[in-house]
Protein backbone atom coordinates (compact mmCIF):
# COMPACT_ATOMS: atom_id res chain seq x y z
CA UNK A 1 0.00 0.00 0.00
CA UNK A 2 2.96 2.32 0.56
CA UNK A 3 3.58 2.32 -3.11
CA UNK A 4 0.01 3.42 -3.80
CA UNK A 5 0.24 6.22 -1.28
CA UNK A 6 3.37 7.62 -2.97
CA UNK A 7 1.74 7.56 -6.36
CA UNK A 8 -1.26 9.45 -5.11
CA UNK A 9 0.60 12.12 -3.23
CA UNK A 10 2.78 12.83 -6.21
CA UNK A 11 -0.17 13.28 -8.54
CA UNK A 12 -0.97 16.96 -8.90
CA UNK A 13 -4.49 18.13 -8.28
CA UNK A 14 -5.77 20.87 -10.59
CA UNK A 15 -5.84 24.19 -8.78
CA UNK A 16 -9.22 25.68 -8.19
CA UNK A 17 -9.45 29.21 -9.55
CA UNK A 18 -13.18 29.76 -9.71
CA UNK A 19 -14.86 32.95 -10.76
CA UNK A 20 -18.29 34.40 -10.31
CA UNK A 21 -20.97 33.90 -12.84
CA UNK A 22 -24.60 34.89 -13.07
CA UNK A 23 -26.89 32.28 -14.43
CA UNK A 24 -30.11 33.10 -16.27
CA UNK A 25 -33.19 31.02 -15.50
CA UNK A 26 -36.29 30.20 -17.47
CA UNK A 27 -39.47 31.83 -16.23
CA UNK A 28 -42.32 29.44 -16.92
CA UNK A 29 -45.07 31.99 -16.39
CA UNK A 30 -43.79 34.62 -18.79
CA UNK A 31 -42.03 32.19 -21.11
CA UNK A 32 -38.89 34.28 -21.00
CA UNK A 33 -35.39 34.03 -19.60
CA UNK A 34 -35.00 35.67 -16.25
CA UNK A 35 -31.79 37.63 -16.57
CA UNK A 36 -31.94 39.36 -13.22
CA UNK A 37 -28.31 39.55 -12.27
CA UNK A 38 -27.24 39.20 -8.70
CA UNK A 39 -29.88 36.59 -7.84
CA UNK A 40 -27.30 33.99 -8.75
CA UNK A 41 -24.04 34.41 -7.04
CA UNK A 42 -22.21 31.49 -8.45
CA UNK A 43 -18.60 30.85 -7.85
CA UNK A 44 -18.00 28.61 -10.76
CA UNK A 45 -15.00 28.37 -12.97
CA UNK A 46 -15.69 28.03 -16.63
CA UNK A 47 -13.55 25.12 -17.64
CA UNK A 48 -12.65 24.29 -21.21
CA UNK A 49 -13.64 20.86 -22.46
CA UNK A 50 -9.99 19.84 -22.30
CA UNK A 51 -9.72 21.01 -18.69
CA UNK A 52 -12.82 19.02 -17.77
CA UNK A 53 -11.42 16.00 -19.53
CA UNK A 54 -8.17 16.32 -17.57
CA UNK A 55 -10.13 16.80 -14.36
CA UNK A 56 -12.04 13.59 -15.04
CA UNK A 57 -8.76 11.70 -15.28
CA UNK A 58 -7.69 13.07 -11.90
CA UNK A 59 -11.11 12.18 -10.51
CA UNK A 60 -10.78 8.63 -11.85
CA UNK A 61 -7.39 8.32 -10.17
CA UNK A 62 -8.85 9.59 -6.92
CA UNK A 63 -11.84 7.27 -6.87
CA UNK A 64 -9.62 4.28 -7.59
CA UNK A 65 -7.32 5.35 -4.76
CA UNK A 66 -10.13 5.45 -2.23
CA UNK A 67 -11.75 2.24 -3.47
CA UNK A 68 -8.36 0.58 -3.13
CA UNK A 69 -7.86 1.97 0.38
CA UNK A 70 -11.38 0.94 1.43
CA UNK A 71 -11.11 -2.38 -0.35
CA UNK A 72 -14.71 -1.76 -1.42
CA UNK A 73 -16.62 0.23 -4.00
CA UNK A 74 -18.66 0.14 -7.16
CA UNK A 75 -15.75 0.73 -9.51
CA UNK A 76 -17.42 0.09 -12.87
CA UNK A 77 -20.43 2.34 -12.31
CA UNK A 78 -18.26 5.05 -10.73
CA UNK A 79 -16.15 5.16 -13.87
CA UNK A 80 -19.18 5.21 -16.17
CA UNK A 81 -20.83 8.21 -14.49
CA UNK A 82 -17.83 10.28 -13.36
CA UNK A 83 -17.76 12.43 -16.50
CA UNK A 84 -21.44 13.30 -16.03
CA UNK A 85 -20.86 14.19 -12.37
CA UNK A 86 -17.82 16.25 -13.32
CA UNK A 87 -19.88 18.28 -15.79
CA UNK A 88 -22.76 18.64 -13.34
CA UNK A 89 -20.69 20.00 -10.45
CA UNK A 90 -18.16 21.96 -12.50
CA UNK A 91 -20.30 23.37 -15.26
CA UNK A 92 -24.02 23.03 -14.56
CA UNK A 93 -25.25 22.97 -10.96
CA UNK A 94 -25.78 26.23 -9.17
CA UNK A 95 -24.45 24.90 -5.88
CA UNK A 96 -21.19 25.35 -4.06
CA UNK A 97 -19.89 24.68 -0.55
CA UNK A 98 -21.04 28.20 0.34
CA UNK A 99 -24.58 27.72 -0.98
CA UNK A 100 -25.45 24.23 0.28
CA UNK A 101 -28.27 25.72 2.36
CA UNK A 102 -29.44 28.29 -0.17
CA UNK A 103 -33.12 27.52 -0.84
CA UNK A 104 -32.58 28.40 -4.49
CA UNK A 105 -29.62 26.09 -5.08
CA UNK A 106 -29.90 23.49 -7.81
CA UNK A 107 -30.47 20.01 -6.38
CA UNK A 108 -28.71 16.83 -7.40
CA UNK A 109 -30.05 13.49 -6.12
CA UNK A 110 -27.99 10.44 -6.93
CA UNK A 111 -30.52 7.68 -7.45
CA UNK A 112 -27.86 5.11 -8.36
CA UNK A 113 -26.40 5.61 -4.91
CA UNK A 114 -23.90 2.79 -5.24
CA UNK A 115 -21.71 4.97 -7.47
CA UNK A 116 -20.99 7.00 -4.35
CA UNK A 117 -17.21 7.06 -4.69
CA UNK A 118 -17.57 9.06 -7.90
CA UNK A 119 -19.87 11.52 -6.13
CA UNK A 120 -17.55 11.80 -3.11
CA UNK A 121 -14.46 12.65 -5.17
CA UNK A 122 -16.38 15.17 -7.29
CA UNK A 123 -17.75 16.87 -4.15
CA UNK A 124 -14.33 16.88 -2.49
CA UNK A 125 -12.73 18.32 -5.63
CA UNK A 126 -15.39 21.03 -5.67
CA UNK A 127 -14.43 21.96 -2.12
CA UNK A 128 -17.33 20.51 -0.14
CA UNK A 129 -14.91 18.65 2.16
CA UNK A 130 -11.20 17.78 2.17
CA UNK A 131 -10.34 14.97 -0.22
CA UNK A 132 -8.19 13.36 2.48
CA UNK A 133 -11.31 12.57 4.54
CA UNK A 134 -12.09 9.89 1.97
CA UNK A 135 -9.30 7.85 3.47
CA UNK A 136 -11.94 6.75 5.98
CA UNK A 137 -14.28 5.50 3.22
CA UNK A 138 -16.27 2.50 4.48
CA UNK A 139 -14.20 2.43 7.68
CA UNK A 140 -15.57 1.98 11.22
CA UNK A 141 -17.48 5.11 12.36
CA UNK A 142 -16.76 7.01 9.14
CA UNK A 143 -19.50 9.23 7.71
CA UNK A 144 -18.30 8.24 4.25
CA UNK A 145 -20.33 5.03 4.01
CA UNK A 146 -20.84 3.07 0.83
CA UNK A 147 -23.96 4.97 -0.25
CA UNK A 148 -24.74 8.71 -0.11
CA UNK A 149 -25.80 10.15 3.24
CA UNK A 150 -26.65 13.67 4.36
CA UNK A 151 -23.89 13.50 6.94
CA UNK A 152 -21.62 14.35 4.02
CA UNK A 153 -21.69 18.01 3.03
CA UNK A 154 -23.33 18.54 -0.33
CA UNK A 155 -25.46 15.40 -0.28
CA UNK A 156 -29.20 16.08 -0.22
CA UNK A 157 -30.69 12.62 0.39
CA UNK A 158 -29.71 9.24 1.74
CA UNK A 159 -30.01 7.08 -1.34
CA UNK A 160 -28.83 3.68 -2.43
CA UNK A 161 -32.01 1.65 -2.47
CA UNK A 162 -32.90 1.89 -6.16
CA UNK A 163 -35.97 3.61 -7.52
CA UNK A 164 -35.97 6.40 -4.93
CA UNK A 165 -34.21 9.31 -6.64
CA UNK A 166 -36.84 10.15 -9.23
CA UNK A 167 -39.84 10.39 -6.85
CA UNK A 168 -37.78 12.55 -4.47
CA UNK A 169 -36.59 14.74 -7.34
CA UNK A 170 -40.14 15.11 -8.61
CA UNK A 171 -41.17 16.31 -5.13
CA UNK A 172 -38.34 18.85 -5.06
CA UNK A 173 -39.15 20.06 -8.58
CA UNK A 174 -42.82 20.37 -7.67
CA UNK A 175 -41.92 22.43 -4.59
CA UNK A 176 -39.91 24.78 -6.84
CA UNK A 177 -42.96 25.21 -9.07
CA UNK A 178 -45.22 25.84 -6.07
CA UNK A 179 -42.81 28.47 -4.76
CA UNK A 180 -41.95 29.99 -8.12
CA UNK A 181 -38.32 29.21 -7.24
CA UNK A 182 -35.73 29.15 -10.00
CA UNK A 183 -33.82 26.02 -9.07
CA UNK A 184 -33.54 22.88 -11.14
CA UNK A 185 -33.41 19.28 -9.98
CA UNK A 186 -31.12 16.68 -11.49
CA UNK A 187 -31.06 13.00 -10.70
CA UNK A 188 -29.02 10.13 -12.09
CA UNK A 189 -30.37 6.64 -12.54
CA UNK A 190 -28.72 3.41 -13.50
CA UNK A 191 -30.08 1.39 -16.42
CA UNK A 192 -30.62 -1.72 -14.29
CA UNK A 193 -32.57 0.55 -11.95
CA UNK A 194 -35.21 1.17 -14.62
CA UNK A 195 -36.82 -2.11 -13.56
CA UNK A 196 -37.89 -0.47 -10.28
CA UNK A 197 -41.60 0.36 -10.61
CA UNK A 198 -41.39 3.51 -8.50
CA UNK A 199 -39.49 5.20 -11.38
CA UNK A 200 -42.52 4.83 -13.60
CA UNK A 201 -44.88 6.12 -10.91
CA UNK A 202 -42.72 9.24 -10.75
CA UNK A 203 -42.30 9.45 -14.53
CA UNK A 204 -46.07 9.63 -14.93
CA UNK A 205 -46.48 12.18 -12.19
CA UNK A 206 -43.60 14.44 -13.31
CA UNK A 207 -45.11 14.72 -16.78
CA UNK A 208 -48.57 15.31 -15.27
CA UNK A 209 -47.22 18.25 -13.26
CA UNK A 210 -45.19 19.52 -16.26
CA UNK A 211 -41.98 19.58 -14.24
CA UNK A 212 -39.66 21.12 -16.83
CA UNK A 213 -37.21 21.95 -14.04
CA UNK A 214 -36.53 18.22 -13.60
CA UNK A 215 -33.77 16.36 -15.44
CA UNK A 216 -33.29 12.61 -15.11
CA UNK A 217 -29.99 11.34 -16.47
CA UNK A 218 -29.61 7.68 -17.32
CA UNK A 219 -26.12 6.27 -16.92
CA UNK A 220 -26.66 3.73 -19.67
CA UNK A 221 -23.63 1.48 -19.49
CA UNK A 222 -25.75 -1.57 -20.44
CA UNK A 223 -24.41 -3.72 -17.60
CA UNK A 224 -25.82 -4.56 -14.19
CA UNK A 225 -24.55 -6.90 -11.50
CA UNK A 226 -25.80 -10.07 -13.19
CA UNK A 227 -24.90 -9.12 -16.73
CA UNK A 228 -26.30 -7.21 -19.72
CA UNK A 229 -29.57 -5.35 -19.10
CA UNK A 230 -31.04 -7.06 -22.14
CA UNK A 231 -30.35 -10.46 -20.63
CA UNK A 232 -31.46 -9.67 -17.07
CA UNK A 233 -34.70 -7.85 -17.87
CA UNK A 234 -34.60 -5.65 -20.92
CA UNK A 235 -35.33 -1.96 -20.33
CA UNK A 236 -35.68 -1.39 -24.09
CA UNK A 237 -36.91 0.55 -25.87
CA UNK A 238 -35.74 3.18 -23.40
CA UNK A 239 -36.17 6.48 -25.27
CA UNK A 240 -39.59 5.47 -26.59
CA UNK A 241 -40.81 4.64 -23.08
CA UNK A 242 -39.89 8.07 -21.72
CA UNK A 243 -41.30 9.79 -24.79
CA UNK A 244 -44.53 7.88 -24.30
CA UNK A 245 -44.59 9.01 -20.67
CA UNK A 246 -44.52 12.61 -21.90
CA UNK A 247 -40.88 13.51 -21.37
CA UNK A 248 -38.45 15.45 -23.53
CA UNK A 249 -35.78 12.85 -24.39
CA UNK A 250 -32.22 13.59 -25.48
CA UNK A 251 -29.56 11.01 -26.22
CA UNK A 252 -25.92 11.89 -25.62
CA UNK A 253 -22.51 10.31 -25.38
CA UNK A 254 -22.01 10.27 -21.61
CA UNK A 255 -18.28 10.75 -21.98
CA UNK A 256 -18.44 13.67 -24.45
CA UNK A 257 -17.97 16.89 -22.51
CA UNK A 258 -19.22 19.11 -25.32
CA UNK A 259 -22.50 17.19 -25.57
CA UNK A 260 -22.98 16.85 -21.82
CA UNK A 261 -22.38 20.55 -21.22
CA UNK A 262 -24.76 21.60 -23.94
CA UNK A 263 -27.57 19.27 -22.94
CA UNK A 264 -27.33 19.59 -19.15
CA UNK A 265 -26.98 23.37 -19.22
CA UNK A 266 -30.05 23.63 -21.42
CA UNK A 267 -32.38 22.65 -18.58
CA UNK A 268 -35.20 23.51 -18.55
CA UNK A 269 -34.96 22.62 -22.21
CA UNK A 270 -38.58 22.25 -23.25
CA UNK A 271 -41.21 24.25 -21.40
CA UNK A 272 -43.75 22.10 -19.51
CA UNK A 273 -41.88 18.84 -20.03
CA UNK A 274 -39.37 17.07 -17.79
CA UNK A 275 -36.17 16.04 -19.57
CA UNK A 276 -34.70 12.56 -19.78
CA UNK A 277 -31.05 12.45 -20.82
CA UNK A 278 -30.15 9.03 -22.15
CA UNK A 279 -26.39 9.08 -21.64
CA UNK A 280 -24.63 6.22 -23.38
CA UNK A 281 -21.67 5.28 -21.25
CA UNK A 282 -19.10 2.54 -20.82
CA UNK A 283 -18.90 0.70 -17.52
CA UNK A 284 -15.32 0.93 -16.23
CA UNK A 285 -14.59 3.77 -18.68
CA UNK A 286 -10.97 4.87 -18.85
CA UNK A 287 -9.29 1.66 -17.68
CA UNK A 288 -8.83 -0.72 -20.59
CA UNK A 289 -9.26 -3.96 -18.68
CA UNK A 290 -12.29 -2.69 -16.75
CA UNK A 291 -14.22 -1.33 -19.71
CA UNK A 292 -17.48 -3.14 -20.38
CA UNK A 293 -16.61 -6.05 -18.06
CA UNK A 294 -19.34 -6.90 -15.57
CA UNK A 295 -17.03 -8.16 -12.83
CA UNK A 296 -15.97 -4.56 -12.19
CA UNK A 297 -19.50 -3.72 -10.99
CA UNK A 298 -18.07 -3.85 -7.50
CA UNK A 299 -14.63 -5.19 -8.22
CA UNK A 300 -11.65 -3.83 -6.29
CA UNK A 301 -8.36 -3.84 -8.21
CA UNK A 302 -5.44 -5.91 -6.97
CA UNK A 303 -2.16 -4.05 -6.35
CA UNK A 304 -0.99 -4.97 -9.82
CA UNK A 305 -4.28 -3.96 -11.44
CA UNK A 306 -4.25 -0.71 -9.51
CA UNK A 307 -0.77 0.16 -10.75
CA UNK A 308 -1.76 -0.71 -14.29
CA UNK A 309 -4.87 1.48 -14.03
CA UNK A 310 -2.87 4.44 -12.75
CA UNK A 311 -0.30 4.00 -15.50
CA UNK A 312 -3.08 4.09 -18.07
CA UNK A 313 -4.64 7.20 -16.54
CA UNK A 314 -1.29 8.96 -16.32
CA UNK A 315 -0.71 8.17 -19.97
CA UNK A 316 -4.11 9.75 -20.76
CA UNK A 317 -3.07 12.85 -18.80
CA UNK A 318 0.13 13.13 -20.78
CA UNK A 319 -1.70 13.05 -24.09
Amino acid at each position, binding site marked *: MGNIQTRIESSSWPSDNRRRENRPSWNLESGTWNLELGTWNLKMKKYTNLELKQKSIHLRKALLKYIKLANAGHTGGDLSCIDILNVLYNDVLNVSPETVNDPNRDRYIQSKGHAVEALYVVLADAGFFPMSELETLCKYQSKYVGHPTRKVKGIEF*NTGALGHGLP*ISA*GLALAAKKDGAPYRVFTMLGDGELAEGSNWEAAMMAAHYKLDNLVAILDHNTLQITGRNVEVCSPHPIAEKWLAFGWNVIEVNGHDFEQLREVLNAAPAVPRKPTFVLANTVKGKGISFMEDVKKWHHGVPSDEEYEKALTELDAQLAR
Partner: protein
Amino acid sequence: MKITDQLIKGKANLEVYSETLIELGQADRNIMAVTSDSRGSGKLTPFADKLPEQLVEVGIAEQNLVGVAAGLAAAGKKVFATSPSCFLATRSLEQIKNDVAYSNYPVNLVGISAGVSYGALGSTHHSLHDVAVLRAINNIVVVVPADNFEAREAVKAAAASDKPFFLKFGKKNMPHLHTADEKFEIGKASIIVEGTDVAFIACGETVAPAFEAAQKLNEQGISARVISMHTIKPLDTETILKAARECKTVITVEEHSVNGGLGEACASTILEAGISVPFKRVGLPDEETVAGSQAEIFNHYGISGEGLARTARTCINKIQT
Protein backbone atom coordinates in the same frame (compact mmCIF):
# COMPACT_ATOMS: atom_id res chain seq x y z
CA MET B 1 -62.83 11.55 33.13
CA LYS B 2 -64.86 10.26 36.02
CA ILE B 3 -65.65 6.56 35.93
CA THR B 4 -69.38 7.30 35.99
CA ASP B 5 -69.26 9.77 33.07
CA GLN B 6 -71.45 8.97 30.10
CA LEU B 7 -69.48 8.75 26.86
CA ILE B 8 -70.52 11.44 24.40
CA LYS B 9 -70.02 10.71 20.73
CA GLY B 10 -67.76 13.00 18.76
CA LYS B 11 -66.62 12.91 15.15
CA ALA B 12 -64.36 10.50 13.34
CA ASN B 13 -60.70 11.26 14.09
CA LEU B 14 -60.18 11.49 10.33
CA GLU B 15 -62.64 14.38 10.15
CA VAL B 16 -60.80 16.15 12.93
CA TYR B 17 -57.56 15.60 11.01
CA SER B 18 -59.08 17.24 7.95
CA GLU B 19 -60.50 20.22 9.90
CA THR B 20 -57.24 20.78 11.75
CA LEU B 21 -55.23 20.59 8.54
CA ILE B 22 -57.44 23.23 6.93
CA GLU B 23 -56.88 25.55 9.92
CA LEU B 24 -53.12 24.95 9.81
CA GLY B 25 -53.02 25.26 6.04
CA GLN B 26 -54.85 28.56 6.03
CA ALA B 27 -52.37 29.98 8.51
CA ASP B 28 -49.29 28.51 6.81
CA ARG B 29 -49.16 28.12 3.05
CA ASN B 30 -46.27 25.67 3.40
CA ILE B 31 -48.65 23.07 4.85
CA MET B 32 -49.39 20.56 2.09
CA ALA B 33 -51.46 17.41 1.81
CA VAL B 34 -50.27 14.76 -0.62
CA THR B 35 -52.75 12.05 -1.55
CA SER B 36 -52.78 8.86 -3.60
CA ASP B 37 -56.33 9.11 -4.98
CA SER B 38 -57.31 9.13 -1.31
CA ARG B 39 -58.69 12.61 -0.68
CA GLY B 40 -62.22 11.24 -0.32
CA SER B 41 -61.38 8.47 2.12
CA GLY B 42 -59.01 10.86 3.89
CA LYS B 43 -61.83 13.41 4.31
CA LEU B 44 -59.57 15.88 2.51
CA THR B 45 -62.06 17.04 -0.12
CA PRO B 46 -62.81 20.21 1.92
CA PHE B 47 -59.05 20.84 2.18
CA ALA B 48 -58.72 20.39 -1.60
CA ASP B 49 -61.65 22.76 -2.19
CA LYS B 50 -60.40 25.46 0.18
CA LEU B 51 -56.66 25.16 -0.46
CA PRO B 52 -56.29 23.64 -3.94
CA GLU B 53 -52.71 24.86 -4.33
CA GLN B 54 -51.73 23.01 -1.17
CA LEU B 55 -52.99 19.61 -2.23
CA VAL B 56 -50.84 17.38 -4.40
CA GLU B 57 -52.46 14.35 -5.99
CA VAL B 58 -50.02 11.67 -7.17
CA GLY B 59 -52.55 9.04 -8.20
CA ILE B 60 -52.60 5.47 -6.96
CA ALA B 61 -48.85 5.26 -6.41
CA GLU B 62 -47.89 4.94 -2.77
CA GLN B 63 -44.14 4.65 -3.27
CA ASN B 64 -44.16 7.84 -5.29
CA LEU B 65 -46.45 9.43 -2.68
CA VAL B 66 -43.80 9.14 0.01
CA GLY B 67 -40.85 9.94 -2.27
CA VAL B 68 -42.58 13.08 -3.53
CA ALA B 69 -43.54 14.00 0.04
CA ALA B 70 -39.89 13.69 1.09
CA GLY B 71 -38.81 15.90 -1.81
CA LEU B 72 -41.40 18.51 -0.89
CA ALA B 73 -40.31 18.38 2.76
CA ALA B 74 -36.67 18.80 1.75
CA ALA B 75 -37.71 21.99 -0.01
CA GLY B 76 -39.29 23.32 3.19
CA LYS B 77 -42.88 22.16 2.86
CA LYS B 78 -44.76 20.76 5.87
CA VAL B 79 -46.19 17.69 4.25
CA PHE B 80 -49.01 15.37 5.32
CA ALA B 81 -48.78 12.32 3.04
CA THR B 82 -52.18 10.72 3.37
CA SER B 83 -53.08 7.22 2.27
CA PRO B 84 -54.90 4.17 3.65
CA SER B 85 -52.68 2.79 6.38
CA CYS B 86 -52.80 -0.72 4.90
CA PHE B 87 -50.92 0.55 1.82
CA LEU B 88 -48.91 3.41 3.31
CA ALA B 89 -47.13 1.39 5.97
CA THR B 90 -46.02 -1.47 3.74
CA ARG B 91 -46.22 -0.48 0.07
CA SER B 92 -44.19 2.63 0.88
CA LEU B 93 -42.14 1.20 3.73
CA GLU B 94 -38.78 1.54 2.02
CA GLN B 95 -39.54 5.15 1.13
CA ILE B 96 -40.54 5.78 4.76
CA LYS B 97 -37.35 4.13 5.97
CA ASN B 98 -34.90 5.82 3.57
CA ASP B 99 -36.41 9.00 2.12
CA VAL B 100 -38.11 10.14 5.33
CA ALA B 101 -36.63 8.57 8.47
CA TYR B 102 -33.02 7.88 7.44
CA SER B 103 -32.75 11.05 5.36
CA ASN B 104 -34.43 12.85 8.29
CA TYR B 105 -36.98 15.02 6.55
CA PRO B 106 -40.08 15.92 8.59
CA VAL B 107 -42.78 14.23 6.54
CA ASN B 108 -46.01 13.48 8.38
CA LEU B 109 -47.34 10.16 7.19
CA VAL B 110 -51.04 9.81 7.81
CA GLY B 111 -52.41 6.28 7.75
CA ILE B 112 -56.14 6.58 7.24
CA SER B 113 -58.95 4.03 7.68
CA ALA B 114 -56.49 2.19 9.87
CA GLY B 115 -56.76 -1.13 11.68
CA VAL B 116 -59.96 -2.89 10.65
CA SER B 117 -61.82 0.34 9.76
CA TYR B 118 -62.43 -1.21 6.34
CA GLY B 119 -63.67 -4.32 8.19
CA ALA B 120 -65.77 -6.13 5.61
CA LEU B 121 -63.40 -5.31 2.74
CA GLY B 122 -61.11 -8.03 4.00
CA SER B 123 -57.48 -8.41 4.95
CA THR B 124 -56.07 -6.60 1.89
CA HIS B 125 -57.51 -3.44 3.43
CA HIS B 126 -56.69 -4.09 7.08
CA SER B 127 -53.60 -2.53 8.62
CA LEU B 128 -52.68 -4.72 11.54
CA HIS B 129 -48.97 -4.44 10.87
CA ASP B 130 -48.30 -0.69 10.58
CA VAL B 131 -47.16 -0.11 14.15
CA ALA B 132 -45.03 -3.27 14.14
CA VAL B 133 -43.06 -2.31 11.03
CA LEU B 134 -42.68 1.33 12.02
CA ARG B 135 -41.52 0.50 15.54
CA ALA B 136 -38.47 -1.03 13.92
CA ILE B 137 -37.68 2.10 11.90
CA ASN B 138 -35.32 4.54 13.58
CA ASN B 139 -36.26 8.23 13.71
CA ILE B 140 -40.04 8.28 13.37
CA VAL B 141 -42.68 9.27 15.92
CA VAL B 142 -45.69 6.93 15.90
CA VAL B 143 -48.98 8.32 17.22
CA VAL B 144 -52.34 6.55 17.44
CA PRO B 145 -54.87 9.08 18.81
CA ALA B 146 -57.86 7.83 20.80
CA ASP B 147 -60.37 10.63 20.39
CA ASN B 148 -60.98 13.95 18.69
CA PHE B 149 -58.91 15.88 21.23
CA GLU B 150 -55.87 13.65 20.83
CA ALA B 151 -56.31 13.63 17.05
CA ARG B 152 -56.34 17.40 16.86
CA GLU B 153 -53.40 17.84 19.22
CA ALA B 154 -51.38 15.16 17.42
CA VAL B 155 -51.87 16.86 14.04
CA LYS B 156 -50.79 20.20 15.52
CA ALA B 157 -47.76 18.61 17.18
CA ALA B 158 -46.75 16.88 13.94
CA ALA B 159 -47.03 20.11 11.96
CA ALA B 160 -44.87 21.93 14.48
CA SER B 161 -42.23 19.20 14.72
CA ASP B 162 -39.06 18.83 12.68
CA LYS B 163 -39.22 15.04 13.08
CA PRO B 164 -40.92 12.48 10.84
CA PHE B 165 -44.33 11.41 12.17
CA PHE B 166 -46.72 8.57 11.51
CA LEU B 167 -50.33 9.28 12.53
CA LYS B 168 -52.95 6.58 12.47
CA PHE B 169 -56.63 7.46 12.14
CA GLY B 170 -59.79 5.38 11.96
CA LYS B 171 -63.15 6.12 10.37
CA LYS B 172 -65.45 5.58 13.31
CA ASN B 173 -67.06 8.40 15.29
CA MET B 174 -65.15 8.44 18.55
CA PRO B 175 -66.50 9.38 22.00
CA HIS B 176 -64.79 12.22 23.84
CA LEU B 177 -62.29 10.98 26.42
CA HIS B 178 -60.73 14.35 27.19
CA THR B 179 -61.85 17.87 27.87
CA ALA B 180 -60.53 20.55 25.54
CA ASP B 181 -58.42 22.17 28.28
CA GLU B 182 -56.38 19.04 29.03
CA LYS B 183 -52.69 18.85 28.31
CA PHE B 184 -51.40 16.76 25.44
CA GLU B 185 -47.78 15.89 25.01
CA ILE B 186 -46.15 13.62 22.43
CA GLY B 187 -44.47 10.75 24.27
CA LYS B 188 -46.54 11.24 27.43
CA ALA B 189 -49.53 8.93 27.87
CA SER B 190 -52.93 10.20 29.04
CA ILE B 191 -54.54 8.65 32.08
CA ILE B 192 -58.22 8.56 31.16
CA VAL B 193 -59.27 7.21 34.53
CA GLU B 194 -57.32 6.11 37.62
CA GLY B 195 -57.57 2.65 39.16
CA THR B 196 -55.49 0.06 41.01
CA ASP B 197 -56.77 -3.46 40.30
CA VAL B 198 -56.43 -3.58 36.54
CA ALA B 199 -54.48 -1.35 34.14
CA PHE B 200 -55.73 -1.18 30.57
CA ILE B 201 -53.00 0.24 28.36
CA ALA B 202 -54.73 0.95 25.05
CA CYS B 203 -54.36 3.13 22.00
CA GLY B 204 -56.51 4.56 19.24
CA GLU B 205 -60.05 3.29 18.86
CA THR B 206 -59.60 0.67 21.58
CA VAL B 207 -59.31 3.21 24.40
CA ALA B 208 -63.08 3.85 24.43
CA PRO B 209 -63.95 0.13 24.84
CA ALA B 210 -61.31 -0.05 27.60
CA PHE B 211 -63.10 2.82 29.37
CA GLU B 212 -66.46 1.04 28.97
CA ALA B 213 -64.86 -2.06 30.49
CA ALA B 214 -63.58 0.03 33.41
CA GLN B 215 -67.14 1.29 33.99
CA LYS B 216 -68.53 -2.26 34.05
CA LEU B 217 -65.74 -3.43 36.36
CA ASN B 218 -66.36 -0.46 38.66
CA GLU B 219 -69.96 -1.61 39.12
CA GLN B 220 -68.56 -4.95 40.25
CA GLY B 221 -66.14 -3.34 42.71
CA ILE B 222 -63.05 -3.70 40.52
CA SER B 223 -60.99 -0.58 40.06
CA ALA B 224 -59.51 -0.20 36.55
CA ARG B 225 -56.99 2.34 35.28
CA VAL B 226 -57.35 3.30 31.62
CA ILE B 227 -54.30 4.67 29.85
CA SER B 228 -54.34 6.09 26.36
CA MET B 229 -50.85 5.28 25.08
CA HIS B 230 -51.29 7.58 22.09
CA THR B 231 -47.58 7.77 21.38
CA ILE B 232 -46.17 4.33 20.70
CA LYS B 233 -42.78 5.70 19.70
CA PRO B 234 -41.16 7.18 21.74
CA LEU B 235 -42.89 5.08 24.39
CA ASP B 236 -43.86 6.52 27.77
CA THR B 237 -42.10 3.82 29.78
CA GLU B 238 -42.60 5.71 33.04
CA THR B 239 -46.38 5.48 32.85
CA ILE B 240 -46.20 1.80 31.85
CA LEU B 241 -43.91 0.90 34.76
CA LYS B 242 -46.01 2.90 37.21
CA ALA B 243 -49.08 0.93 36.12
CA ALA B 244 -47.18 -2.36 36.36
CA ARG B 245 -46.08 -1.50 39.93
CA GLU B 246 -49.40 -0.11 41.18
CA CYS B 247 -51.94 -2.42 39.51
CA LYS B 248 -52.47 -6.15 40.06
CA THR B 249 -52.65 -6.96 36.37
CA VAL B 250 -51.85 -5.22 33.10
CA ILE B 251 -53.92 -5.68 29.94
CA THR B 252 -52.86 -4.09 26.66
CA VAL B 253 -55.47 -3.39 24.00
CA GLU B 254 -54.82 -2.52 20.37
CA GLU B 255 -56.45 -2.61 16.95
CA HIS B 256 -53.37 -4.33 15.60
CA SER B 257 -51.78 -7.73 15.47
CA VAL B 258 -50.72 -8.82 18.94
CA ASN B 259 -47.34 -9.40 17.30
CA GLY B 260 -45.06 -6.40 17.29
CA GLY B 261 -47.50 -3.77 18.51
CA LEU B 262 -48.27 -1.86 21.70
CA GLY B 263 -48.65 -5.04 23.77
CA GLU B 264 -45.17 -6.31 23.01
CA ALA B 265 -43.73 -2.84 23.52
CA CYS B 266 -45.27 -2.72 27.02
CA ALA B 267 -44.28 -6.32 27.82
CA SER B 268 -40.63 -5.76 27.02
CA THR B 269 -40.62 -2.51 29.01
CA ILE B 270 -42.05 -4.24 32.08
CA LEU B 271 -39.83 -7.30 31.78
CA GLU B 272 -36.65 -5.30 31.33
CA ALA B 273 -37.47 -3.35 34.49
CA GLY B 274 -37.60 -6.66 36.39
CA ILE B 275 -41.28 -6.35 37.25
CA SER B 276 -43.37 -9.48 37.41
CA VAL B 277 -47.05 -8.79 36.88
CA PRO B 278 -49.84 -10.87 35.33
CA PHE B 279 -50.05 -9.57 31.76
CA LYS B 280 -52.38 -10.06 28.82
CA ARG B 281 -52.26 -8.76 25.25
CA VAL B 282 -55.62 -8.15 23.58
CA GLY B 283 -55.61 -7.44 19.87
CA LEU B 284 -55.92 -9.29 16.60
CA PRO B 285 -54.45 -12.80 16.90
CA ASP B 286 -52.09 -14.28 14.33
CA GLU B 287 -54.82 -15.73 12.12
CA GLU B 288 -56.82 -14.67 9.08
CA THR B 289 -59.07 -11.99 10.48
CA VAL B 290 -62.74 -12.87 10.70
CA ALA B 291 -65.06 -11.18 8.18
CA GLY B 292 -67.32 -8.43 9.42
CA SER B 293 -67.65 -4.77 10.28
CA GLN B 294 -65.12 -3.14 12.60
CA ALA B 295 -67.60 -3.50 15.50
CA GLU B 296 -68.19 -7.18 14.71
CA ILE B 297 -64.47 -7.86 14.43
CA PHE B 298 -63.88 -6.03 17.74
CA ASN B 299 -66.57 -8.10 19.43
CA HIS B 300 -65.23 -11.32 17.95
CA TYR B 301 -61.80 -10.73 19.46
CA GLY B 302 -63.01 -9.34 22.77
CA ILE B 303 -62.16 -5.70 22.07
CA SER B 304 -65.36 -4.40 23.63
CA GLY B 305 -66.51 -3.14 27.02
CA GLU B 306 -67.94 -6.54 27.87
CA GLY B 307 -65.06 -8.53 26.35
CA LEU B 308 -62.36 -6.54 28.09
CA ALA B 309 -64.22 -6.63 31.44
CA ARG B 310 -64.40 -10.40 31.08
CA THR B 311 -60.67 -10.62 30.32
CA ALA B 312 -59.92 -8.44 33.34
CA ARG B 313 -62.01 -10.64 35.64
CA THR B 314 -60.25 -13.74 34.30
CA CYS B 315 -56.85 -12.19 35.00
CA ILE B 316 -57.85 -11.17 38.53
CA ASN B 317 -59.37 -14.58 39.27
CA LYS B 318 -56.11 -16.21 38.24
CA ILE B 319 -54.21 -14.09 40.73
CA GLN B 320 -56.63 -14.98 43.51
CA THR B 321 -56.49 -18.73 42.88
